[in-house]
Protein backbone atom coordinates (compact mmCIF):
# COMPACT_ATOMS: atom_id res chain seq x y z
CA UNK A 1 0.00 0.00 0.00
CA UNK A 2 1.20 3.37 -1.07
CA UNK A 3 0.51 6.62 0.75
CA UNK A 4 0.10 8.71 -2.40
CA UNK A 5 -2.24 6.15 -3.94
CA UNK A 6 -4.23 6.09 -0.71
CA UNK A 7 -4.70 9.83 -0.80
CA UNK A 8 -5.73 9.58 -4.43
CA UNK A 9 -8.44 7.04 -3.61
CA UNK A 10 -9.66 9.11 -0.66
CA UNK A 11 -9.86 12.23 -2.81
CA UNK A 12 -11.69 10.22 -5.47
CA UNK A 13 -14.24 8.86 -3.02
CA UNK A 14 -14.72 12.18 -1.22
CA UNK A 15 -15.68 13.84 -4.51
CA UNK A 16 -17.14 17.33 -4.26
CA UNK A 17 -17.25 17.15 -0.49
CA UNK A 18 -13.48 17.42 -0.49
CA UNK A 19 -11.03 16.07 2.00
CA UNK A 20 -9.40 17.96 4.86
CA UNK A 21 -5.84 17.45 6.09
CA UNK A 22 -7.31 16.32 9.37
CA UNK A 23 -9.28 13.58 7.65
CA UNK A 24 -6.24 12.38 5.74
CA UNK A 25 -4.09 12.36 8.83
CA UNK A 26 -6.66 10.46 10.86
CA UNK A 27 -7.34 7.80 8.23
CA UNK A 28 -3.67 7.27 7.45
CA UNK A 29 -2.65 7.72 11.06
CA UNK A 30 0.01 10.29 10.21
CA UNK A 31 0.60 13.91 11.27
CA UNK A 32 -1.15 16.72 9.40
CA UNK A 33 2.25 18.01 8.30
CA UNK A 34 3.03 14.68 6.73
CA UNK A 35 -0.44 14.63 5.15
CA UNK A 36 0.18 18.06 3.70
CA UNK A 37 3.53 17.01 2.28
CA UNK A 38 1.99 13.97 0.62
CA UNK A 39 -0.82 16.04 -0.82
CA UNK A 40 1.65 18.51 -2.29
CA UNK A 41 3.73 15.69 -3.74
CA UNK A 42 0.64 14.24 -5.38
CA UNK A 43 -0.37 17.65 -6.67
CA UNK A 44 3.05 18.10 -8.25
CA UNK A 45 2.94 14.63 -9.80
CA UNK A 46 -0.41 15.38 -11.40
CA UNK A 47 0.84 18.71 -12.64
CA UNK A 48 3.96 17.31 -14.25
CA UNK A 49 2.47 14.19 -15.76
CA UNK A 50 1.40 14.96 -19.32
CA UNK A 51 -0.85 11.95 -19.49
CA UNK A 52 -2.79 12.87 -16.38
CA UNK A 53 -5.99 14.87 -16.79
CA UNK A 54 -6.67 15.35 -13.10
CA UNK A 55 -5.48 17.91 -10.59
CA UNK A 56 -5.94 18.70 -6.92
CA UNK A 57 -7.99 21.76 -6.18
CA UNK A 58 -8.08 23.55 -2.86
CA UNK A 59 -11.54 24.69 -1.79
CA UNK A 60 -11.74 26.34 1.61
CA UNK A 61 -9.76 24.07 3.88
CA UNK A 62 -10.49 20.96 1.84
CA UNK A 63 -8.93 19.39 -1.22
CA UNK A 64 -10.77 17.78 -4.08
CA UNK A 65 -10.01 16.12 -7.38
CA UNK A 66 -10.90 18.06 -10.51
CA UNK A 67 -10.09 17.94 -14.19
CA UNK A 68 -7.27 20.14 -15.50
CA UNK A 69 -8.30 23.42 -17.02
CA UNK A 70 -7.04 22.60 -20.49
CA UNK A 71 -9.58 19.80 -20.76
CA UNK A 72 -12.60 22.01 -20.11
CA UNK A 73 -13.32 22.36 -23.81
CA UNK A 74 -13.38 18.64 -24.40
CA UNK A 75 -15.64 18.07 -21.41
CA UNK A 76 -17.98 20.69 -22.79
CA UNK A 77 -17.99 18.78 -26.05
CA UNK A 78 -18.72 15.58 -24.16
CA UNK A 79 -21.53 17.30 -22.23
CA UNK A 80 -23.41 18.27 -25.39
CA UNK A 81 -22.57 15.17 -27.43
CA UNK A 82 -25.68 13.41 -28.72
CA UNK A 83 -24.52 10.18 -27.09
CA UNK A 84 -24.42 11.88 -23.71
CA UNK A 85 -27.56 13.91 -24.17
CA UNK A 86 -29.88 11.57 -26.04
CA UNK A 87 -33.51 12.05 -25.10
CA UNK A 88 -34.91 9.41 -22.79
CA UNK A 89 -38.38 7.92 -23.18
CA UNK A 90 -39.45 10.06 -20.22
CA UNK A 91 -38.23 13.20 -21.99
CA UNK A 92 -39.97 12.25 -25.22
CA UNK A 93 -43.25 11.57 -23.44
CA UNK A 94 -43.03 14.86 -21.62
CA UNK A 95 -42.31 16.66 -24.85
CA UNK A 96 -45.23 14.92 -26.56
CA UNK A 97 -47.63 15.85 -23.76
CA UNK A 98 -46.53 19.47 -23.88
CA UNK A 99 -46.81 19.52 -27.67
CA UNK A 100 -50.38 18.23 -27.61
CA UNK A 101 -51.69 19.82 -24.43
CA UNK A 102 -49.91 23.16 -24.18
CA UNK A 103 -49.95 25.37 -22.22
CA UNK A 104 -49.63 22.93 -19.36
CA UNK A 105 -48.16 22.84 -15.82
CA UNK A 106 -45.72 20.27 -14.50
CA UNK A 107 -48.40 18.96 -12.14
CA UNK A 108 -50.71 18.30 -15.05
CA UNK A 109 -47.95 16.53 -16.95
CA UNK A 110 -47.25 14.36 -13.89
CA UNK A 111 -50.94 13.51 -13.73
CA UNK A 112 -51.12 12.47 -17.36
CA UNK A 113 -47.93 10.41 -17.18
CA UNK A 114 -48.76 8.93 -13.79
CA UNK A 115 -45.20 9.59 -12.59
CA UNK A 116 -43.03 12.53 -11.56
CA UNK A 117 -41.41 14.39 -14.41
CA UNK A 118 -38.85 16.82 -12.94
CA UNK A 119 -35.65 15.58 -14.60
CA UNK A 120 -37.17 15.06 -18.03
CA UNK A 121 -38.63 18.56 -18.08
CA UNK A 122 -35.22 20.00 -17.29
CA UNK A 123 -33.67 18.06 -20.16
CA UNK A 124 -36.08 19.27 -22.84
CA UNK A 125 -35.87 22.82 -21.52
CA UNK A 126 -32.13 22.57 -21.96
CA UNK A 127 -32.60 21.35 -25.53
CA UNK A 128 -34.58 24.50 -26.28
CA UNK A 129 -37.67 22.53 -27.28
CA UNK A 130 -39.98 24.03 -24.66
CA UNK A 131 -40.19 27.27 -22.74
CA UNK A 132 -42.19 28.98 -20.03
CA UNK A 133 -45.44 30.45 -21.32
CA UNK A 134 -46.55 32.41 -18.29
CA UNK A 135 -48.21 31.33 -15.08
CA UNK A 136 -51.53 29.95 -13.96
CA UNK A 137 -53.78 32.58 -12.39
CA UNK A 138 -54.63 31.88 -8.79
CA UNK A 139 -52.81 30.32 -5.86
CA UNK A 140 -49.49 28.66 -6.51
CA UNK A 141 -49.07 30.46 -9.83
CA UNK A 142 -47.62 27.31 -11.42
CA UNK A 143 -45.45 27.72 -14.50
CA UNK A 144 -47.09 26.92 -17.82
CA UNK A 145 -44.96 25.22 -20.46
CA UNK A 146 -45.29 25.24 -24.23
CA UNK A 147 -43.20 24.40 -27.28
CA UNK A 148 -40.75 26.89 -28.78
CA UNK A 149 -40.26 28.32 -32.23
CA UNK A 150 -37.20 26.07 -32.44
CA UNK A 151 -39.54 23.11 -31.92
CA UNK A 152 -41.63 24.21 -34.93
CA UNK A 153 -38.55 24.83 -37.06
CA UNK A 154 -36.92 21.57 -36.12
CA UNK A 155 -39.97 19.49 -37.01
CA UNK A 156 -40.78 21.69 -40.00
CA UNK A 157 -44.24 22.56 -38.69
CA UNK A 158 -46.17 25.61 -39.83
CA UNK A 159 -48.91 24.93 -37.34
CA UNK A 160 -49.33 22.62 -34.32
CA UNK A 161 -52.34 21.06 -36.06
CA UNK A 162 -49.84 19.46 -38.41
CA UNK A 163 -48.82 17.04 -35.65
CA UNK A 164 -50.38 13.58 -36.10
CA UNK A 165 -53.81 13.53 -34.48
CA UNK A 166 -54.20 11.84 -31.11
CA UNK A 167 -58.00 12.10 -31.08
CA UNK A 168 -58.43 8.42 -31.88
CA UNK A 169 -55.98 6.97 -29.42
CA UNK A 170 -57.02 9.22 -26.61
CA UNK A 171 -59.98 8.00 -24.57
CA UNK A 172 -61.65 9.83 -21.71
CA UNK A 173 -60.37 8.66 -18.36
CA UNK A 174 -63.50 6.77 -17.23
CA UNK A 175 -63.90 4.97 -20.48
CA UNK A 176 -60.35 3.82 -20.21
CA UNK A 177 -60.71 2.33 -16.75
CA UNK A 178 -64.01 0.60 -17.41
CA UNK A 179 -62.47 -0.86 -20.49
CA UNK A 180 -59.74 -2.06 -18.30
CA UNK A 181 -61.97 -3.89 -15.88
CA UNK A 182 -63.68 -5.46 -18.80
CA UNK A 183 -60.33 -6.69 -20.08
CA UNK A 184 -59.52 -8.19 -16.69
CA UNK A 185 -62.85 -9.89 -16.54
CA UNK A 186 -62.40 -11.33 -19.97
CA UNK A 187 -58.93 -12.56 -19.07
CA UNK A 188 -60.18 -14.27 -15.99
CA UNK A 189 -62.95 -16.02 -17.85
CA UNK A 190 -60.61 -17.09 -20.59
CA UNK A 191 -58.27 -18.66 -18.10
CA UNK A 192 -61.12 -20.45 -16.42
CA UNK A 193 -62.44 -21.70 -19.72
CA UNK A 194 -59.06 -23.01 -20.78
CA UNK A 195 -58.55 -24.73 -17.49
CA UNK A 196 -61.90 -26.37 -17.65
CA UNK A 197 -61.08 -27.85 -20.97
CA UNK A 198 -57.65 -29.06 -20.17
CA UNK A 199 -58.17 -30.39 -16.72
CA UNK A 200 -60.89 -33.01 -16.80
CA UNK A 201 -61.80 -33.64 -13.20
CA UNK A 202 -59.48 -34.49 -10.38
CA UNK A 203 -56.29 -32.61 -10.98
CA UNK A 204 -57.12 -29.21 -9.62
CA UNK A 205 -53.99 -27.31 -10.32
CA UNK A 206 -55.76 -24.12 -11.15
CA UNK A 207 -53.27 -22.04 -9.28
CA UNK A 208 -52.26 -19.95 -12.22
CA UNK A 209 -55.23 -17.69 -12.43
CA UNK A 210 -53.15 -14.69 -11.67
CA UNK A 211 -50.92 -14.65 -14.67
Amino acid at each position, binding site marked *: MNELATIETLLFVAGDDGLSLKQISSVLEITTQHAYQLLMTLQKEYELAQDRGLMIMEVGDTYQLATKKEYAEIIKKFAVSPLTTSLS*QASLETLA*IIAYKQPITRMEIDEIRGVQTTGALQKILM*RGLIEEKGRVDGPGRAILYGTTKYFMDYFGLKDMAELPS*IAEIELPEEEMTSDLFYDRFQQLEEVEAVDEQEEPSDDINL*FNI*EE
Partner: protein
Amino acid sequence: MAEIHLKMDAFEGPLDLLLHLIQKLELDIYDIPVAEVTEQYMAYIHAMKELQLDIASDYLVMAATLLAIKSKMLLPKQELAIDEEDEGYFETGDDPREALVEQLLEYRKYKYAADELKEREETRSQYYTKAPADLHEWQQNVPLNPLQLTTSDIFLAFSQMLHRKKLNQPLQTKIALQEVTIEEKMADILAIIRKKNGEKIDFQTFFEVATKSEMVTTFLAVLELMKAKSIWIEQKEVFGELWVYEGAMHVVE
Protein backbone atom coordinates in the same frame (compact mmCIF):
# COMPACT_ATOMS: atom_id res chain seq x y z
CA MET B 1 -51.44 -18.74 17.68
CA ALA B 2 -52.52 -18.39 14.12
CA GLU B 3 -52.23 -14.65 14.50
CA ILE B 4 -48.48 -14.74 14.95
CA HIS B 5 -46.92 -13.81 11.69
CA LEU B 6 -43.42 -15.03 11.30
CA LYS B 7 -41.66 -16.64 8.44
CA MET B 8 -39.26 -19.49 8.72
CA ASP B 9 -36.56 -17.10 7.72
CA ALA B 10 -33.79 -19.56 8.26
CA PHE B 11 -34.92 -21.27 5.09
CA GLU B 12 -35.98 -19.72 1.86
CA GLY B 13 -39.00 -21.97 1.57
CA PRO B 14 -40.00 -25.62 1.52
CA LEU B 15 -37.59 -26.47 -1.30
CA ASP B 16 -34.70 -24.98 0.63
CA LEU B 17 -35.73 -26.92 3.72
CA LEU B 18 -36.02 -30.14 1.72
CA LEU B 19 -32.58 -29.65 0.19
CA HIS B 20 -31.24 -29.10 3.65
CA LEU B 21 -32.78 -32.33 4.92
CA ILE B 22 -31.51 -34.30 1.92
CA GLN B 23 -28.06 -32.92 2.60
CA LYS B 24 -28.16 -33.51 6.31
CA LEU B 25 -29.38 -37.08 5.98
CA GLU B 26 -26.91 -37.68 3.15
CA LEU B 27 -29.62 -38.86 0.83
CA ASP B 28 -29.49 -39.37 -2.91
CA ILE B 29 -31.50 -36.59 -4.42
CA TYR B 30 -32.30 -38.81 -7.41
CA ASP B 31 -33.71 -41.54 -5.20
CA ILE B 32 -35.27 -39.84 -2.22
CA PRO B 33 -36.63 -42.13 0.49
CA VAL B 34 -39.86 -40.23 0.75
CA ALA B 35 -41.02 -41.76 3.99
CA GLU B 36 -37.86 -40.71 5.78
CA VAL B 37 -37.79 -37.23 4.33
CA THR B 38 -41.46 -36.70 5.06
CA GLU B 39 -40.96 -37.74 8.64
CA GLN B 40 -38.08 -35.32 9.07
CA TYR B 41 -39.93 -32.58 7.27
CA MET B 42 -42.97 -32.98 9.50
CA ALA B 43 -40.73 -33.08 12.55
CA TYR B 44 -39.30 -29.77 11.50
CA ILE B 45 -42.74 -28.27 10.92
CA HIS B 46 -43.77 -29.46 14.36
CA ALA B 47 -40.67 -27.97 15.89
CA MET B 48 -41.55 -24.67 14.30
CA LYS B 49 -45.03 -24.99 15.69
CA GLU B 50 -43.64 -25.59 19.16
CA LEU B 51 -41.69 -22.41 18.79
CA GLN B 52 -45.05 -20.86 17.99
CA LEU B 53 -43.99 -19.83 14.56
CA ASP B 54 -46.68 -19.26 12.05
CA ILE B 55 -45.78 -21.73 9.37
CA ALA B 56 -46.05 -20.22 5.93
CA SER B 57 -48.68 -21.89 3.80
CA ASP B 58 -46.06 -22.87 1.23
CA TYR B 59 -44.58 -25.22 3.81
CA LEU B 60 -47.95 -26.80 4.45
CA VAL B 61 -48.58 -27.26 0.76
CA MET B 62 -45.25 -29.06 0.49
CA ALA B 63 -46.15 -31.21 3.48
CA ALA B 64 -49.32 -32.22 1.66
CA THR B 65 -47.33 -32.96 -1.49
CA LEU B 66 -44.89 -35.14 0.42
CA LEU B 67 -47.71 -37.05 2.06
CA ALA B 68 -49.39 -37.53 -1.30
CA ILE B 69 -46.17 -38.88 -2.82
CA LYS B 70 -45.62 -41.10 0.16
CA SER B 71 -49.06 -42.62 -0.09
CA LYS B 72 -48.72 -43.08 -3.84
CA MET B 73 -45.50 -44.97 -3.28
CA LEU B 74 -47.21 -47.23 -0.80
CA LEU B 75 -49.86 -48.23 -3.30
CA PRO B 76 -49.26 -51.66 -4.81
CA LYS B 77 -47.74 -51.23 -8.23
CA GLN B 78 -49.87 -52.40 -11.08
CA GLU B 79 -48.28 -54.50 -13.79
CA LEU B 80 -45.26 -52.43 -14.51
CA ALA B 81 -44.11 -52.43 -18.05
CA ILE B 82 -40.46 -52.05 -17.19
CA ASP B 83 -38.47 -50.80 -20.09
CA GLU B 84 -35.35 -52.83 -20.62
CA GLU B 85 -33.19 -49.79 -20.91
CA ASP B 86 -34.70 -48.32 -17.82
CA GLU B 87 -32.90 -49.45 -14.72
CA GLY B 88 -35.09 -47.49 -12.36
CA TYR B 89 -37.85 -48.73 -10.12
CA PHE B 90 -40.55 -47.54 -12.36
CA GLU B 91 -40.90 -46.20 -15.77
CA THR B 92 -39.75 -42.64 -15.41
CA GLY B 93 -43.23 -41.24 -15.82
CA ASP B 94 -44.55 -43.46 -13.08
CA ASP B 95 -42.30 -42.37 -10.27
CA PRO B 96 -44.44 -40.09 -8.14
CA ARG B 97 -41.27 -38.36 -6.97
CA GLU B 98 -40.21 -37.25 -10.38
CA ALA B 99 -41.80 -33.82 -10.43
CA LEU B 100 -40.49 -33.01 -6.97
CA VAL B 101 -36.96 -34.14 -7.79
CA GLU B 102 -36.96 -32.02 -10.90
CA GLN B 103 -38.15 -29.06 -8.90
CA LEU B 104 -35.41 -29.60 -6.33
CA LEU B 105 -32.71 -29.90 -8.96
CA GLU B 106 -33.90 -26.78 -10.72
CA TYR B 107 -34.06 -24.82 -7.49
CA ARG B 108 -30.62 -26.04 -6.46
CA LYS B 109 -29.11 -24.56 -9.62
CA TYR B 110 -30.28 -21.08 -8.75
CA LYS B 111 -29.32 -21.49 -5.14
CA TYR B 112 -25.82 -22.18 -6.36
CA ALA B 113 -25.99 -19.20 -8.69
CA ALA B 114 -27.18 -17.05 -5.80
CA ASP B 115 -24.09 -18.07 -3.83
CA GLU B 116 -21.93 -17.08 -6.77
CA LEU B 117 -23.67 -13.72 -6.96
CA LYS B 118 -23.10 -13.23 -3.25
CA GLU B 119 -19.38 -13.73 -3.74
CA ARG B 120 -19.35 -11.32 -6.64
CA GLU B 121 -21.29 -8.80 -4.59
CA GLU B 122 -18.62 -8.98 -1.91
CA THR B 123 -15.80 -8.62 -4.42
CA ARG B 124 -17.46 -5.74 -6.20
CA SER B 125 -18.04 -3.87 -2.96
CA GLN B 126 -14.27 -3.55 -2.65
CA TYR B 127 -14.21 -1.16 -5.59
CA TYR B 128 -15.42 2.36 -5.03
CA THR B 129 -16.73 4.44 -7.92
CA LYS B 130 -17.92 8.02 -8.08
CA ALA B 131 -21.14 9.67 -9.18
CA PRO B 132 -21.12 11.34 -12.59
CA ALA B 133 -20.06 14.99 -12.55
CA ASP B 134 -22.82 17.55 -12.84
CA LEU B 135 -22.57 18.82 -16.39
CA HIS B 136 -25.66 20.94 -16.08
CA GLU B 137 -23.79 24.18 -16.46
CA TRP B 138 -22.40 23.12 -19.79
CA GLN B 139 -25.69 21.91 -21.12
CA GLN B 140 -27.55 25.11 -21.92
CA ASN B 141 -29.30 25.08 -25.27
CA VAL B 142 -28.11 21.82 -26.69
CA PRO B 143 -29.66 21.62 -30.15
CA LEU B 144 -31.00 18.38 -31.56
CA ASN B 145 -29.12 16.59 -34.30
CA PRO B 146 -30.78 16.69 -37.71
CA LEU B 147 -33.26 13.81 -38.01
CA GLN B 148 -32.75 12.83 -34.39
CA LEU B 149 -36.50 13.20 -33.95
CA THR B 150 -39.53 13.37 -36.22
CA THR B 151 -43.16 14.20 -35.53
CA SER B 152 -43.92 10.47 -35.54
CA ASP B 153 -41.59 10.09 -32.55
CA ILE B 154 -43.70 12.64 -30.72
CA PHE B 155 -46.90 10.83 -31.66
CA LEU B 156 -45.41 7.46 -30.77
CA ALA B 157 -44.21 8.66 -27.40
CA PHE B 158 -47.70 9.90 -26.61
CA SER B 159 -49.41 6.68 -27.62
CA GLN B 160 -46.84 4.59 -25.79
CA MET B 161 -47.44 6.61 -22.70
CA LEU B 162 -51.20 6.00 -22.94
CA HIS B 163 -50.57 2.33 -23.54
CA ARG B 164 -48.28 2.06 -20.55
CA LYS B 165 -50.81 3.80 -18.38
CA LYS B 166 -53.45 1.38 -19.46
CA LEU B 167 -51.19 -1.55 -18.67
CA ASN B 168 -50.23 -0.16 -15.32
CA GLN B 169 -53.82 0.11 -14.23
CA PRO B 170 -54.40 -3.65 -14.04
CA LEU B 171 -51.41 -3.73 -11.78
CA GLN B 172 -53.58 -2.07 -9.18
CA THR B 173 -56.46 -4.45 -9.60
CA LYS B 174 -53.94 -7.23 -9.60
CA ILE B 175 -52.63 -6.25 -6.21
CA ALA B 176 -56.18 -6.25 -4.92
CA LEU B 177 -56.63 -9.68 -6.43
CA GLN B 178 -53.58 -10.94 -4.65
CA GLU B 179 -54.72 -9.68 -1.32
CA VAL B 180 -56.14 -13.12 -0.66
CA THR B 181 -54.15 -16.05 -1.92
CA ILE B 182 -55.57 -19.51 -2.30
CA GLU B 183 -53.32 -20.66 0.50
CA GLU B 184 -54.63 -18.00 2.84
CA LYS B 185 -58.18 -18.79 1.87
CA MET B 186 -57.55 -22.48 2.56
CA ALA B 187 -56.31 -21.59 6.02
CA ASP B 188 -59.35 -19.37 6.61
CA ILE B 189 -61.78 -22.06 5.58
CA LEU B 190 -60.07 -24.66 7.71
CA ALA B 191 -60.14 -22.32 10.69
CA ILE B 192 -63.87 -21.78 10.29
CA ILE B 193 -64.55 -25.47 9.94
CA ARG B 194 -62.41 -26.43 12.89
CA LYS B 195 -64.30 -24.06 15.09
CA LYS B 196 -67.42 -26.08 14.35
CA ASN B 197 -65.98 -29.18 16.02
CA GLY B 198 -67.18 -31.65 13.45
CA GLU B 199 -70.45 -29.97 12.65
CA LYS B 200 -71.30 -29.34 9.03
CA ILE B 201 -71.26 -25.88 7.48
CA ASP B 202 -73.29 -24.42 4.66
CA PHE B 203 -71.10 -24.17 1.57
CA GLN B 204 -72.59 -20.75 0.84
CA THR B 205 -71.12 -19.18 3.97
CA PHE B 206 -67.69 -19.19 2.39
CA PHE B 207 -68.92 -17.20 -0.56
CA GLU B 208 -70.14 -14.14 1.25
CA VAL B 209 -67.15 -12.27 -0.10
CA ALA B 210 -66.58 -8.90 -1.67
CA THR B 211 -65.28 -9.59 -5.13
CA LYS B 212 -65.54 -12.04 -7.94
CA SER B 213 -61.87 -12.75 -7.76
CA GLU B 214 -62.13 -13.60 -4.09
CA MET B 215 -65.01 -15.90 -4.96
CA VAL B 216 -62.85 -17.68 -7.48
CA THR B 217 -60.06 -17.93 -4.93
CA THR B 218 -62.48 -19.32 -2.36
CA PHE B 219 -63.77 -21.90 -4.78
CA LEU B 220 -60.26 -23.00 -5.69
CA ALA B 221 -59.34 -23.15 -2.02
CA VAL B 222 -62.29 -25.45 -1.37
CA LEU B 223 -61.20 -27.71 -4.22
CA GLU B 224 -57.65 -27.77 -2.93
CA LEU B 225 -58.83 -28.65 0.56
CA MET B 226 -60.87 -31.51 -0.85
CA LYS B 227 -57.87 -32.69 -2.78
CA ALA B 228 -55.78 -32.55 0.38
CA LYS B 229 -58.55 -34.50 2.14
CA SER B 230 -58.91 -31.78 4.74
CA ILE B 231 -62.61 -31.35 4.04
CA TRP B 232 -65.37 -33.16 2.28
CA ILE B 233 -68.65 -32.00 0.83
CA GLU B 234 -72.04 -33.59 0.87
CA GLN B 235 -75.00 -32.91 -1.39
CA LYS B 236 -78.09 -34.94 -0.71
CA GLU B 237 -79.98 -34.14 -3.92
CA VAL B 238 -79.37 -32.46 -7.25
CA PHE B 239 -79.29 -28.67 -6.76
CA GLY B 240 -79.62 -29.31 -3.05
CA GLU B 241 -77.66 -27.64 -0.28
CA LEU B 242 -73.96 -28.31 -0.17
CA TRP B 243 -72.62 -29.17 3.28
CA VAL B 244 -68.98 -28.95 4.18
CA TYR B 245 -67.40 -31.25 6.76
CA GLU B 246 -63.96 -31.45 8.21
CA GLY B 247 -61.82 -34.51 7.51
CA ALA B 248 -61.05 -37.01 4.78
CA MET B 249 -63.26 -37.02 1.73
CA HIS B 250 -66.22 -39.34 1.60
CA VAL B 251 -68.24 -40.02 -1.51
CA VAL B 252 -69.10 -36.74 -3.10
CA GLU B 253 -72.28 -36.71 -5.01
